[in-house]
């Protein structure tokens, strides 16, 4: 596919950023908070798309990498009192380091073994926090990005501030990810996903490419972890449960793992479904048990239906349908 020039892309991102800015001024606090959640999910999902969609490796433990990022950010603030952007950078680096280690292990594994190893990681890693008092045990650590600057006015809420920070970080991350995927590495990963053997025959160092994919993906996940820590104000083992890993994977599948184009769909779905289902259930006057369980069922069912019927995700599906129908230029 032909590529947009960088100038046009930068322009598009600025327009999106402006739209987000306008949006943040026109919705209430709850929506702004949910907007920040969406941004966290966008980054988390994008990290899975980089890994699964582009290099064909699966990770059921992405939540653990988010955890590494979150803890790194919180620790660096607590111990060294670094400014917030620096804590984000540390989160990215720390998670990338963990990802590299994981990638070295993962390069030896494939399919179910990799899935299982990352699953075990998702369960095992967060509980490490209990082993070292510096990590704050079950209660975890505080991570406080501070109040919005007073120059923004007294009405400027904390959540809006979170939303701004998260949106900016998200836009930068997605822009960078697009660059990576358009680069030589992106093509290499795609070749590996297509056929490992063929890629190897074509002279690709498969193991190295896989480790690199893991490293970069983990770095992005680390950013998502720091953003998550920011929106909930703490890091603790239970902030990065197995369910988080599954949610991100679900979002990635709903978004379509082969393209970044649908990432917002996956993220919005994750935030919106519990809300929509919850409000329907509440309106129907059903019990709390239904209200808290139905969203799980709906999300799970949606995941299954997507995998079966639109395995490449809705965006890719629409795109290929248009190509097939010949309506596309």
């Amino acid at each position, binding site marked *: 596919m032909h590529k947009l020039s960088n100038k046009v892309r930068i322009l598009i991102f600025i327009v999106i950023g402006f739209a987000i800015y306008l*949006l943040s001024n026109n919705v209430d606090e*709850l929506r702004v908070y949910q907007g920040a959640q969406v941004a966290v999910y966008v980054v988390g999902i994008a990290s899975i798309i980089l890994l699964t969609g582009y290099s064909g490796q699966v990770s059921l433990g992405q939540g653990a990498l988010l955890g590494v990022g979150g803890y790194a950010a919180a620790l660096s603030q607590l111990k060294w009192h670094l400014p917030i952007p620096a804590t984000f950078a540390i989160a990215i680096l720390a998670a990338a380091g963990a990802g590299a280690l994981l990638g070295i292990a993962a390069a030896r594994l494939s399919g179910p073994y990799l899935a299982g190893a990352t699953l075990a990681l998702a369960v095992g890693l967060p509980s490490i926090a209990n082993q070292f008092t510096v990590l704050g045990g079950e209660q975890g650590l505080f991570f406080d990005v501070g109040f919005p600057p007073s120059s923004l006015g007294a009405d400027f809420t904390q959540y809006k501030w979170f939303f701004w920070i998260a949106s900016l970080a998200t836009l930068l991350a997605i822009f960078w990810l697009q660059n990576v995927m358009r680069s030589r590495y992106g093509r290499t990963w795609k070749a590996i996903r297509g056929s490992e053997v063929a890629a190897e025959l074509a002279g690709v160092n498969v193991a190295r490419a896989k480790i690199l994919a893991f490293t970069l993906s983990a770095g992005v996940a680390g950013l998502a972890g720091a953003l998550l820590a920011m929106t909930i104000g703490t890091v603790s083992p239970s902030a990065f449960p197995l369910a988080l890993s599954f949610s991100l994977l679900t979002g990635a599948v709903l978004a379509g793992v082969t393209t970044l184009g649908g990432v917002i769909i996956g993220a919005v779905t994750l935030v919106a479904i519990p809300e929509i289902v919850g409000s329907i259930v509440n309106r129907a006057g059903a019990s709390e048990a239904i209200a808290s369980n139905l969203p799980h069922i709906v999300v799970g069912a949606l995941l299954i239906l997507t995998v079966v019927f639109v395995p490449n995700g809705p965006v890719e599906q629409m795109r290929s349908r248009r190509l097939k129908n010949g309506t596309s230029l």
Partner: protein
Amino acid sequence: MKSFNRRKLISASAILAVTALTATAVPANAFSPKSEVGVSQTEIKLGITLPMTGAASPGYNKVPAAMKAYFDYVNANGGVNGRKVTLVVKDDQYVPTQAVAKTNELILKDRVLALVAPLGTANNKAVAASVNPGKRGVPVLFVNTGFSGFADQKKFPTTYAILPSYVMEAKIMAEYIKDNFAGKTIGLVYQDDDFGTDALSGFKSAGVKFAATVGYASGSQSATTAAGWVTKLKAANCDVVILFGVSSATAAGLGTAAALKYAPQWILGSVGGDATTIKASGVPAGVLYNAVGASFLPATTDTSDEYVSLFQSIYSKAVPGSAFDNNVLVGMNSAFVTVQALKAAGANPTRASLLAAIDSKGSTFASAALLPLNYSKTSHVGYNGYWFGKYSPTGDLKPDGGKYTLYTTDSGSGAVVKSTWKRPAMPAKGLPN
């Protein structure tokens, strides 16, 4: 031409992003500055998050119904200055991120006046940090946790804990052991997180020596892992064992010990000593018999107590067929204290007047507890002591010698002393003035 396609895709996703967000952005009810959030002419709306489902839910999931039972009783008797008190319940599954999300919903969507009686240290720390009710001036009242950190009013200016801290509990327990089990070999099972760490520091400052300590990872407790604990405690020949964990861990420890014919003198922490949960989890009756437990409320079977008998009659009418246990008593007591705080906050309560009322009059609030509340401008910790007793063959905690002996202390290095405080009579019909 293909680039056009790509561009369309990107701009389409941008538009999608914007519309998706705006689509969900249904404007909430217009905010009217005149009346306080959550207070209308006819209603005062409160909110609670706690585990209604999940591993931590047994026992605690009876709390909302108990609170509602008392609120309904008040509402049927004229309400609070003519307003009905309603409670919005959200299930947080004992997961901090969920607690944050649900608390946000309560504040931003349900628009409650205050949060009452939420449960859990980790959850409330996360809520305090993220939702930041302190900065918003949203009261978080009578939190069910003994985490000593909530005493820090700079960090948690609007949070009021109700339980004695775990440090206090450990110190008091140490004193009780000194009085009753001097010279015995003592073992400890604790949850290896802040909950247990708080307790460990209390035991340490009281100078208790343990022959064996078993710290289990939160969530790992089961009859299988408990077989390991018991084996260790037995190997160290412990005669007295303190179980300082959640109810499921307490149940696992007691049940497994019985199966392994190990019968030390048990001392159960107040958090895990919930007889209903222990019995429901298949622990043979009789295992709990003679174990030592602690509470600050009267025994649930003590019908000579005016609070217990009133609460029991209210509850049995509101939730027929449900056992009146300690969780119910805790829930109703929280509701009782809440109603006093609301009344003390004036004819048209606001968040600020509610907080001010607790700070100035909190220490005079009546409650079912056998100790006074200690709220003031400088203290946001509720109760500060316990009485000890033993469990009856039916699993009810009864005070030693039929008489409540209250020990009190602080979370620091203060001594443990016996309290001489006498609880004032209950307000007429259990309706605070």
